[in-house]
């Protein structure tokens, strides 16, 4: 359904997307995961045809987005991060208008609009203006405008930013319903829990580069059973490293991921059992620990292990 090959997007000297490749099939949700500014939105804008890639190839249903853009875009549905609605046009007319933009007409259009209104829970507010809606209702209508023409590929760019928990849960249901109908959903987010709940497979992106890819289970397995242990305090560089290296002789999978004068990031199995020994080693090296953060294996930990920084930094 969606094939992205060696996609590069540059703005002058800045490479926003750096040679990323992935595939997503029908009836699945593919997550594009990364912190703000990682290049997710740039990638999704290239896929939707909003931006021209510097190099690489994007194909939607086998149609190249550049060479055969019209056919490729016919299969696309876009739910942008910001609302894209006519607030002075009734909800039903918003859906009709975007349905017509994708070629729906007559009874097919009316039936589909009625169906979508029910689907997004706005059937009783169909003739009201969106400017009178709550934020969650607008989000749902925004979603409805993206799916009114039954797209084969649905692009969702951080659809839950600024959404209350109830509306977020409703949006998850809508995404799952689209997957159930056979659509391919490309979902960008920087919320790990959303990715873990919704995505069948995902790619982790940072500084425009794709740093990990696979199913959620596959990615978690990269961690093994190791925890991430982040210590904050004072860590004399050479002495601390030497002390941890010495400790690694007795703790088999202990590894330093990153280190500076104030932060020490370690990975090891059953980290809680080894805390006293680690504190002793740090203290023996002339350092001190003021704060400890222990995380069990999940996607957030994986991102931390892969990049040495928090996903939401």
């Amino acid at each position: 359904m969606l094939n992205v090959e060696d996609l590069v997007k540059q703005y002058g000297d800045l490479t926003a997307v750096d040679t990323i490749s992935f595939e997503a099939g029908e009836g699945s949700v593919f997550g594009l995961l990364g912190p703000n500014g990682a290049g997710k939105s740039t990638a999704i804008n290239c896929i939707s045809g909003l931006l021209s890639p510097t190099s690489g190839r994007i194909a939607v249903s086998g149609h190249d987005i550049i060479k055969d853009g019209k056919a490729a875009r016919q299969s696309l549905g876009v739910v942008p991060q910001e609302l894209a609605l006519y607030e002075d046009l009734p909800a039903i007319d918003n859906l009709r208008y975007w349905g017509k933009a994708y070629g729906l007409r007559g009874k097919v259009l009316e039936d589909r609009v009625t169906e979508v209104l029910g689907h997004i829970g706005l059937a009783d507010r169909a003739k009201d203006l969106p400017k009178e809606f709550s934020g969650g209702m607008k989000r749902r209508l925004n979603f409805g405008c993206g799916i009114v023409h039954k797209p084969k590929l649905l692009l969702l760019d951080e659809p839950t930013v600024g959404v209350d928990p109830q509306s977020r849960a409703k949006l998850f249901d809508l995404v799952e319903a689209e997957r159930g109908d056979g659509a391919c959903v490309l979902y960008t987010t920087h919320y790990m829990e959303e990715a873990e709940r919704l995505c069948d497979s995902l790619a982790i992106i940072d500084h425009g580069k794709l740093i990990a890819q696979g199913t959620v289970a596959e990615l978690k397995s990269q961690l093994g059973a190791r925890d991430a242990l982040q210590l904050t305090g004072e860590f004399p560089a050479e002495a601390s490293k030497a002390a941890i290296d010495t400790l690694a002789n007795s703790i088999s999978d202990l590894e330093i991921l990153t280190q500076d004068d104030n932060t020490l990031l370690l990975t090891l199995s059953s980290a809680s059992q080894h805390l006293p020994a680690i504190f002793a080693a740090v203290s023996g090296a002339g350092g001190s620990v003021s704060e400890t953060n222990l995380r069990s294996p999940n996607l957030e930990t994986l991102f931390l292990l892969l990049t040495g920084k928090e996903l939401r930094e």
Partner: protein
Amino acid sequence: MKFLFASVKKDLARWRQDKTAILIWLGIPFLIGGLITSMIDGGGGTPTGVLLIADKDESLLSGFVAGAYSQDQLGELIVAEKVSLEEGEKRINDGDASGFLIIPEGFQDAFLNETPVTLILKTNPAQTILPGIIEDVTEILLDAGFYAQRLFGPEIRQIQNADSITVPDDVFVAGVAVEIQAKMSSIGTKLSPPLLDVVIVEPPPAEPRPDMALLFLPGIILMAVLFASNSLAADYWTERQNGTLRRLVSAPGVLTGFVAGKAIAALTVIGLIATVTLFIGFIYHDVSWSKFLSSLVWVSFGGVGMFAWFAALQMLFANNRAANLVTTILLFPLMMAGGSFFPLAALPEWIAGVGRLSPNGFIVDRLSGELTAASSWTIDANSWLTLLAMTASGLAISTWRLKAGFARK
């Protein structure tokens, strides 16, 4: 094509929500038009002044003097009104007249006996033109009186000495007339100008000058159209801020229909404004209804041309504030040069020439011609083609800007 109609319907539905804007576009020119019309028509024709006359002499001659102010064309300017001395003093002091003439008792006797006599003329200092005219007329009357006394003093005395109760008999009147005729004949050679062959050349028939207030009408209508077209063009920025342009460019092959749809929606709104303003203007100025359709079509399509150019211009700027600021600042010189404040016909020729080169001045110029011409549909093919080219180029630039990045941000 079907998406074009969807776009038209969408924009018209949105504009229907904003009735206030349409009322403002209509209201501003009506306000300005009303002010201009009241300034031009103001007092309702030629101003007249009131000359109060207190005739204390009540004689034949004093009657001639009082009547002289109301003769022929002078009567259109001055209304002579006999009053008592007290009333005249009060009214001139209250500023209720242009002048107050006091004819003293014994005026006729003094005139006939060639003894000094003083006529008193008080003028209203709050007025300038009419009191001046009254002064000039009074001086001319005194000069005329002097010469009349010199020439016809004896005859006038005969009339004065005649029995004032009974009607003079025919012999008396004929005698006086013969004497006057004899004097006229004797001085005729001195008074009459040398004999000249006068050849009267008929001037070429002057073109009928249109009503000045009518010349304001095209500019006032275009003022409404200018405001409307600029505001309608700003809707591209509204759509961009709504995010709908981004969604639009992700859809397959709908951009041309979208731009054309906006133009047709603008045509409808501008057409509505033109219909209302022209309808009222035609009724007020009593313009032939045979010119209504041609004027409406010209103004409506002219408005779309300006909409297209305002849209193209607005999309060249990096942000909405700059776009709004520049186009709003541009509106006023355009209205000034394009005949919205002063008719092109009333401007110095070089300014009018520049004004006719402005888009709205071009439209105003042709509309003025249409409204004042003897027949309808007088706007030539070249003007229509120019308007078509102007609209097409504006829409082409708008489409290019949408594709070139305006819609993607």
